[in-house]
């Protein structure tokens, strides 16, 4: 009987019966993640009203005294896409029906992804004064950031409507796949917040490094160009995590279901990224306030 209990010590069920002091010494797989998970869960359960509001305030205050408000984001993005397509369409050799939606939806998706990466590195630094005054889960600042970008994306969906009407591209069942695509990207946003937010609070050289790399990735990721146009640069696509996360949003918007490979890689990146970020966040979460 005694021996039987010993062999079962690694499983959570057996561990539960033991006093907590013993529990910490034994290796139980979820213990390294407990702190981060608790933070994520409390932020979600108890503070949802807060970060939903602060996400809106972030946008409202930026455009407080302007007439068009947050639609300025959409207008400037639309103008940029129009300018890019005007120059790149002849260069890449596409026509308006194909190239314009490809570029427009790719760029809208890129805006979401790249802003999540860049703002993740500042997520705790920017909220430093609050973190130093308030005991609250740190995840609320991450949720707030992701939520803010979803609101911006909702404004940018006007671009989707405009391009779809202009090129006669009507939504199909495949378009609905954008929902799981967005969920994957949002989970990555949370992971990035946990990982980069924590790391950058400590090392202040990392945010500019991240910003530089992200800027470069805009050119190296197939947004302006098609993946099959540069066969000799296939590596840029195959080993580029941005490509897969972009594709799970752009593909459905173009009415194409992304391939199984794209879905598997995107899901894999999301899972591994989340586990690594959660482990890191669990380890250093309590130190963040000292670094601000």
């Amino acid at each position: 009987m005694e021996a039987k209990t010993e062999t079962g010590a690694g499983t959570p069920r057996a561990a539960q019966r033991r006093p907590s002091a013993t529990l910490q010494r034994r290796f139980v797989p979820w213990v390294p993640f407990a702190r981060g998970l608790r933070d994520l869960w409390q932020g979600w359960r108890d503070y949802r009203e807060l970060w939903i509001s602060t996400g809106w305030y972030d946008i409202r205050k930026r455009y407080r005294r302007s007439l068009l408000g947050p639609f300025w984001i959409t207008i400037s993005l639309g103008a940029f896409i129009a300018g890019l397509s005007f120059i790149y369409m002849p260069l890449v050799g596409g026509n308006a029906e194909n190239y314009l939606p490809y570029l427009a939806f790719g760029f809208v998706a890129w805006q979401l992804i790249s802003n999540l990466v860049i703002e993740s590195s500042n997520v705790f630094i920017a909220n430093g004064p609050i973190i130093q005054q308030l005991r609250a889960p740190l995840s609320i600042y991450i949720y707030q950031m992701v939520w803010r970008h979803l609101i911006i994306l909702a404004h940018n969906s006007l671009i989707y409507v405009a391009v779809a009407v202009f090129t006669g591209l009507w939504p199909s069942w495949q378009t609905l796949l954008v929902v799981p695509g967005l969920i994957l990207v949002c989970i990555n946003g949370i992971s990035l917040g946990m990982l980069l937010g924590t790391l950058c609070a400590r090392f202040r050289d990392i945010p500019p490094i991240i910003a530089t790399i992200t800027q470069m990735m805009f050119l190296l990721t197939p947004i302006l160009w098609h993946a099959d146009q540069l066969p000799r640069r296939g590596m840029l696509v195959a080993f580029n995590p941005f490509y897969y996360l972009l594709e799970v949003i752009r593909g459905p918007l173009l009415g194409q279901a992304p391939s199984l490979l794209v879905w598997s890689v995107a899901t894999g990146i999301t899972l591994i990224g989340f586990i690594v970020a959660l482990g890191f966040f669990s380890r250093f979460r309590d130190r963040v306030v000292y670094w601000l």
Partner: protein
Amino acid sequence: MASVHLANVTVNFPIYDARSRSLKRRAMSVVTRGRVRSDPTGRISDAGHRVLVRALDGVDLTIEHGTRIGLVGRNGVGKSTLLRVIAGIYVPEAGQVAVTGKIASLLGGSLGIDPELSGRENIELRGLYLGLSKAEIRERLEDVIDFTELGPFIDMPFRAYSAGMRARLDFAISTAIAAEILLIDEGLGAGDASFIDKANERLEKLAERAGIVIVASHSEPLLRKTCARAAFTEAGRVLAIGSVDEVLERYNASLAA
């Protein structure tokens, strides 16, 4: 029943300057090994790549339900840090912290205040940060606005407020929630005499309802009025706990020395 129990709590603040915060400096310090320097009080050390300030040094403190205690000591002895450890903001490097009871804190600073938002929106925002739901905030909103006496200014952006108006708003929101443990850092900020009276009265009511009140202050009248007991703090330690009069006497003697 509220209770606060600290055992051997030590808090070190790493102080990074622009250079030591960087990766390069970190990489360099591995190669060069940091020199160790220390100050006469032994609270500052240079451990390799960073300077450490010992803010709390093995603090043992037990506060039972029904206690109102003042923290007395010079600037920089760790009073605010102690309050923040009790509030759960700083998790200490060593030692145990066990706090039971809902905490409300007036730690100074403008938590969550956004100068671009109106006074009304700021009340809502602060309420959310303090853990109230939107429905609870709606219930209290009119009371809080009445208390601020800001009238039509409540719908103007916060940046348009004077210092006194800001202090009123700040105080009115922070004291809108009931708590079992009340933490106060320093007294009140700006505000005219009539508001200070009103604020003190409100603080008094709040303190009566709370199980534990901890006040860090240099104001003797505030300490005598609010607290029965006091803790004398110096160099990151709680040296003695006694009646307010005893502790203030000892504190004043230490200032004269």
